[in-house]
């Protein structure tokens, strides 16, 4: 998929068709999971794919996988189309941007996460932990809403999210 996206950046239409066939149906599912009806998901999904073609040259395979990059495009397009809000993001070319320190253990530049590894790790999470994370990505539920709906204190929800992420990192480390 990463190779396809690089080819798309170079203007390769047949690569774009392949990319479309893999991602457009998933982007549509993603939008529907987040509350779009069939026709809105279709329309916004097509917008996503047009944007992918236009912005493919900003894809950097060293930083993110194709799936991750596609996810950010779909996420931002939904915020734009459904919430009618902008999505503020940092700009690495800004002179005020603080780059990674040259050295340092935990702060060292992390290798990019391979999507297949993360997919496997999510599947291995205990049921409740996987559910908690899926709620955030698929159900449009920020941690404050999860707390309100489940009746749990905010601190409890936060620590459960933290535990789920710690577990996920642990599983991914074991896969390395």
């Amino acid at each position: 998929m990463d190779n396809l996206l690089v080819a798309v950046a170079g203007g390769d239409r047949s690569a774009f068709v392949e990319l479309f066939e893999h991602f457009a149906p998933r982007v549509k599912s993603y939008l529907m999971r987040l509350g779009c009806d069939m026709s809105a998901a279709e329309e916004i999904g097509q917008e996503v794919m047009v944007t992918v073609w236009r912005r493919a040259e900003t894809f950097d395979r060293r930083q993110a996988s194709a799936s991750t990059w596609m996810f950010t495009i779909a996420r931002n397009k939904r915020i734009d189309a459904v919430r009618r809000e902008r999505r503020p993001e940092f700009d690495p070319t800004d002179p005020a941007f603080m780059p990674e320190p040259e050295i340092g253990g935990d702060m060292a530049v992390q290798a990019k996460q391979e999507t297949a590894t993360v997919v496997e790790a999510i599947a291995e999470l205990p049921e409740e932990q996987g559910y908690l994370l899926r709620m955030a990505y698929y159900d449009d539920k920020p941690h404050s809403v999860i707390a309100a709906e489940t009746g749990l204190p905010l601190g409890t929800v936060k620590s459960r999210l933290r535990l789920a992420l710690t577990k996920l990192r642990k599983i991914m480390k074991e896969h390395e």
Partner: protein
Amino acid sequence: MATAHKAAASRGGDGLPSHHLDDAFLLDYAAGNTSEAVSLLIATHLALCPECRARAEELEALGGAMLESLAPTAVDHDALSAVLARLDASDEVEPAVLTLPANDEGQVPSIPMPLRGYLKAEPDALAWQPVIRGLEEYELDVGGAKTKLLRIKPGASMPQHTHEGRELTLVLEGSYDDEIGHFGRGDVAILDDDHDHRPIAGPGQDCICLTVIDAPLRLTGRFGRFLNPFVKF
């Protein structure tokens, strides 16, 4: 501004923040579940904080895996041809990113992107509104929550207050101290109604913070209660 940069550089030598965003906020931001105002504060912290940036990237990779894991839904039979027909259309342009022209050459702007793009001028030239002695504010027009810049004179203290809801604060210039600790450039404080705090700005330079408040504040201090009707928090 040169002053802010100097202050940043003096912080433990690396100029990096020491008070960070927790996983819950980063996860909400990565998943696209934060309001524009909260996203603005988070993204501006990320510009100043490689540590949180690495975690945010990890959570976006989780989003990529979530997308990949979804069962496909069939798209319209003519979807591909409709998209292909639009690929060369030159009349459709991606919206430009908000930006403010760079200031004097060679100076590191004190306000990083994306926040700088939301301001109409450098901090010194903003239409600051006096609130109480030592405190001025500038309200930003951002969706989702009350969003403002605060400018606190060196050494000035704020009225004691608690929060009905959450207040997120990001320090951009100068510093302040409260019951929780010392906050300098890039540091984030997340306060909810459990906290009762009384920040005091550090010496030497104005403290400029971005705050996002999603519910009205209730003042609790002796003077706070008296001031309450006048403070338009």
